[in-house]
């Protein structure tokens, strides 16, 4: 909301600086986002009188003027090329070292050999037009028509010596989306009287009801509709004061009638509309839902096809306005308009919002209605508009009006007490202060003892309970009175993470212990990511965002792989030598699409790594660290994934349940991405792991007898999996507690298609010590079993 200081001063005697007022407004809940000094750009530009004009000796088109600028000098010589200057004229003079609109700097200089100590200014050079000061649009020097002292700062004359407060108004205060609304707050915070609006006008001997018939068929969408007839209209230019006000608000003056509606919108926040009655068929105005397929062309010449969701103002034949959004091209005011029906209405904000969004048609009016207009202001705005009609002598006003709907706005009363308000705040605001603050805000208060009966101003539709009253009190009393206590009356509660939440920390700590860095990536990915990973068929099952920022952030991910790959690729492209990354985040799995129930949000761990010395087994190490943290044993089986290297991919099993995968990025994808390093990616179903993980630590007594170790070099077929050998060893001897592969050798001595696998075995004794002879016996048994089951021989 932009409020000019000069306009606010119409209603409140503001005797502090604009900066001080900014602070005051901030303290009561109105943050001034920007305090704009209107004449910011203009400096050292003053009023001067042209005392004498001489011809330039060397240039036909140039004139040498002698200017009297009062205190700034009585004989300032300035050369100008303008035609419209004359002796005795008062003009704006940009002195030496001055600045003008657009950052233009003026310095003393010579024009064709004659010294010129500044410049005479046009309106454009001051950044103004006729709306600011009559004559500013003239092609030439701005000739001032006011008798003003020489040397006066030009900003004071043309309306640039003003401030605009750009105020952020919260959504609960639509009443402050107007100059007068802000003025009410200013008066309250400064504890000054608020000047009443001029609302009185003289009415003619004719009536609205004779000229036009107004009905409201959709009162649910239009709670109040006020219509007033004005005739013998004189469409003219508006007076300077009004045009300047509009200009300050950034609006161009059109003509007196249109300007009045805009002025009332700014001043009171009530959108107004005027229908040219000569163009209204059958002298009938009806507020109704549009018929399906009905069409309207709005003032900006856009055509819309409507539905019964849209509210229109219609004449006897057709819609003449899209209610609250924009008038129809067929009923707007023209230079020839002689009689109008003024409309001031409260349209239901939700409906205007829907219509505006659905049709993609916006206006100052619709923006205002969306925020909410109160029924009270709907009435007084009409009075204000008619008062201006009279003040500007631009028409004759009918003696009656249509006022359909909430004509009688019953004021809301909130019953509360000093104790209740203070109980919510936690401090003791004295009763006298409470009453005083509420009165300053136009609430009327009846106090009986501690009890308060508070009548809410009609324009404050946001207030409906004692907490709202408490808020009004504290924002004016000052939040700095709130001291800070520590839950004096609250019950003691336990707190902290539950087991499930703590478990997550365990998984993350395990990965950090393996030098993995935690990443956080967006939950949405691109359909292209799925294509990249050759899993586009999964897309059909993914949840899509209706209104994504872009296609690349439109799919709720069903796998963390694309995000992990993206992070790895970014690190590689930035020249980072290596990275170990992990993420613990949700994937989103819909039961069915379109979504009919909350989808499963499955917590998943992803890991990714690349760099010198990294291989499949370092990725596997990350998984083993997680398994260890949960006291689980993962089994790995060679497997396939569309985006992974077919020979370097494993699925991870907990018992017979697959809980994840890991592998090297498929070389063809790596090539597409121009990666010159191998990249490893894996995912684990965190929820399953956490559910099966062991919690708590149970100490096992240390073995009473020393463990015995034996190394075996075993010759097996090339295709033999380490895990097969390992489990065969474990199965054939119950004392084996650890089997570790420590070397693989291939060579002539071993034979073609074979490999030698060196294992280190640990035997842990139970009830008695294991003697060397015992151990030899176990080894014999193991070798026999390996020979029989897997055709493995001792090397």
């Amino acid at each position, binding site marked *: 909301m932009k409020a000019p200081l000069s306009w606010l001063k119409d209603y409140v005697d503001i005797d502090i600086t604009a900066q001080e007022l900014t602070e005051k407004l901030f303290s009561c809940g109105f943050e001034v986002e920007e305090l704009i000094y209107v004449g910011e750009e203009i400096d050292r530009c003053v009023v001067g009188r042209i005392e004498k004009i001489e011809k330039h000796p060397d240039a036909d088109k140039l004139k040498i003027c002698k200017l009297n600028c009062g205190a700034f000098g009585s004989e300032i010589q300035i050369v100008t090329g303008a035609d419209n200057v004359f002796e005795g004229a008062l003009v704006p003079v940009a002195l030496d070292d001055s600045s003008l609109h657009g950052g233009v700097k003026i310095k003393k200089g010579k024009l064709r050999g004659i010294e010129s100590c500044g410049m005479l200014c046009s309106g454009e050079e001051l950044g103004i037009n006729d709306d600011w000061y009559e004559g500013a649009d003239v092609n030439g020097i701005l000739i001032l028509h006011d008798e003003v002292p020489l040397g006066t700062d030009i900003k004071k004359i043309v309306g640039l010596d003003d401030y605009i407060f750009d105020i952020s108004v919260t959504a609960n205060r639509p009443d402050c989306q107007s100059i007068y609304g802000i003025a009410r707050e200013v008066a309250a915070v400064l504890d000054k009287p608020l000047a009443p609006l001029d609302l009185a006008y003289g009415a003619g001997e004719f009536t609205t009801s004779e000229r036009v018939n107004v009905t409201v068929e959709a009162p649910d969408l239009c709670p109040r509709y006020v219509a007033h007839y004005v005739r013998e209209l004189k469409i003219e230019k508006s007076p300077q004061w009004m045009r300047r006000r509009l200009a300050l608000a950034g609006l161009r003056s059109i003509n007196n009638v249109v300007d009045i509606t805009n002025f009332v919108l700014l001043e009171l926040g009530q959108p107004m509309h005027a229908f040219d009655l000569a163009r209204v068929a059958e002298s009938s105005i009806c507020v109704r839902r549009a018929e399906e397929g009905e069409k309207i062309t709005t003032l900006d010449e856009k055509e819309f096809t409507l539905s019964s969701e849209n509210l229109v103002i219609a004449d006897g034949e057709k819609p003449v306005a899209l209610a609250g959004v924009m008038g129809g091209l067929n009923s707007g005011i023209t230079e020839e308009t002689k009689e109008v029906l003024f409309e001031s209405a409260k349209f239901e904000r939700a409906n205007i*919002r829907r219509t505006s969004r659905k049709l993609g048609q916006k206006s100052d009016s619709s923006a205002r209605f969306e925020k909410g207009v109160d029924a009270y202001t709907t009435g007084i705005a009409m009075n204000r508009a008619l008062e201006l009609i009279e003040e500007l002598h631009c028409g004759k006003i009918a003696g009656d009006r249509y006022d359909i709907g909430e004509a009688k706005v019953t004021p809301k009363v909130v019953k509360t007490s000093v104790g209740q308000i203070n109980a919510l705040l936690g401090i003791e605001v004295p009763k006298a202060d409470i009453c005083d603050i509420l009165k300053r805000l136009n609430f009327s208060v009846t106090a009986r003892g501690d009890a308060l009966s508070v009548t809410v101003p009609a324009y404050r539709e946001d207030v409906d309970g004692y907490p*709202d009253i408490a808020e009004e009190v504290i924002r004016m009393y000052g939040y700095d009175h709130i001291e800070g206590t520590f839950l004096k009356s*609250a019950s003691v509660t336990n707190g902290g993470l539950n087991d499930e939440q703590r478990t997550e920390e365990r998984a993350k700590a395990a990965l*950090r212990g393996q030098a993995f*860095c935690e*990443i*956080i990536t967006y939950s949405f990915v691109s359909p292209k990511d799925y294509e990249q990973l050759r899993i586009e068929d999964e897309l059909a099952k993914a949840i899509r965002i209706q209104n994504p920022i872009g296609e690349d952030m439109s799919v709720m991910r069903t796998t963390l792989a694309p995000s992990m790959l993206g992070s790895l690729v970014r690190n590689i492209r*930035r020249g*980072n030598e290596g990275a170990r990354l992990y993420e613990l985040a949700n994937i989103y799995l819909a039961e069915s699409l379109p979504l009919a129930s909350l989808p499963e949000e499955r917590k998943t761990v992803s890991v990714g790594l690349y760099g010198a010395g990294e291989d499949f087994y370092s990725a596997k190490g990350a998984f083993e660290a997680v398994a260890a943290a949960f006291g689980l044993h993962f089994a790995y089986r060679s497997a396939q994934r569309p985006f992974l290297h077919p020979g370097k991919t494993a699925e991870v099993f907990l018992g017979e349940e697959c809980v994840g995968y890991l592998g090297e990025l498929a070389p063809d994808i790596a090539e597409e991405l121009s990666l010159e390093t191998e990249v490893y990616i894996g995912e684990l179903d965190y929820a399953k792991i956490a559910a099966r993980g062991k919690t708590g630590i149970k100490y096992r007594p240390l073995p009473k007898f020393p463990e015995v170790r034996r190394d075996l070099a075993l010759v097996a077929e090339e295709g033999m999996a380490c895990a097969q050998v390992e489990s065969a060893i474990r199965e054939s001897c119950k004392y084996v507690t650890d089997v570790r592969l420590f070397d693989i050798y291939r060579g002539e001595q071993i034979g073609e298609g074979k490999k030698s696998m060196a294992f280190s075995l640990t035997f842990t004794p139970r009830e008695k010590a294991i003697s060397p002879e015992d151990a030899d016996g176990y080894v014999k048994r193991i070798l026999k079993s390996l020979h029989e089951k897997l055709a493995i021989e001792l090397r």
Partner: protein
Amino acid sequence: MKEQIESIRAELEALAAGEGPAASSSRELYELKMEYLGKTGKISALSKGMRDVSPEERPAVGSMVGELRKRAEELFEQWERELKKKELSAKIAREKIDVTMPARFAETGSVHPVSLVRQELIDIFAGMGFDVFEGPEIEKDYYNFQALNIPADHPARDMQDTFFITGEYLLRSQTSSGQIRVMENKKPPIKVLSPGRVYRSDSDATHSPMFHQMEGLVVDRGITLNDLKGMLDEFARRMFSSNTKTRLRPSYFPFTEPSVEVDLSCSNCGGKGCRICKGTGWIEVLGAGMVNRRVLENCNIDPDEFTGFAFGIGLERIAMIKYGIGDIRLMFENDVRFLKQFKG
């Protein structure tokens, strides 16, 4: 015989008086020792020669030989000690290393700064009795808006640009949705934190379409605005520094009444005004307020019996202030050079 004994003694004493034997290694010294004390050494030879000594002289000579042997053993022991010491010094001198060469150590990973802040906040509030509840990220309109006193087509919906999945389902735009889910299932006293990912259609240096919030909710008898201030003071002191101050100023959220914006005194300049706080001395960090009566009613909690407050903290915002991170997008680029700076 006596002459022999004396001459051997003299040899040994001469060595002892000088710099000791010239042996440069234990081996050489051993060989020298054997020359005297070995089975065939000079002193052993004396012992063997005893049989040629007259019986009268034998005791005296015998004791002389015994003394000589003792003396020799003493000296060799001493020389061995000295040599060992010398050898050790030499070894130590040889072994001097360059302590400035790089260390070998198992590097650990790091915690994302958002997680760091999240952990720290949970630590702070858990100590004050808060539980932690994580609600769904894909939410129903009801929980994200309607139950929070934001009906359909309410202008407050414009405060957040929301991503929709269908008309009814959306990506939660605030963790406040967690308030409702908690209050539906638990009656006061309630003290709960609801951290998590939230989504808004917004993207620039200070806004990310996905970011993290942590909602705090307290509902009990006699909870006041003063209590909210007290709790946030504690949060500010522990999150930033013991002299961090909070400032409340009026604001609006549909689900709280009164609503406040909470500013913290700028930790960079201590409130004097600097680039980070744009010269104001204050940094806006969170929104809060007393839980709106309608919200309590929506969850079947009697607003005449119970009051409460709620606050919503942006985790990225806190991390940016606390660690001096200028651009929110860095948080989601996951460059290891960034990540490795946050070793929890």
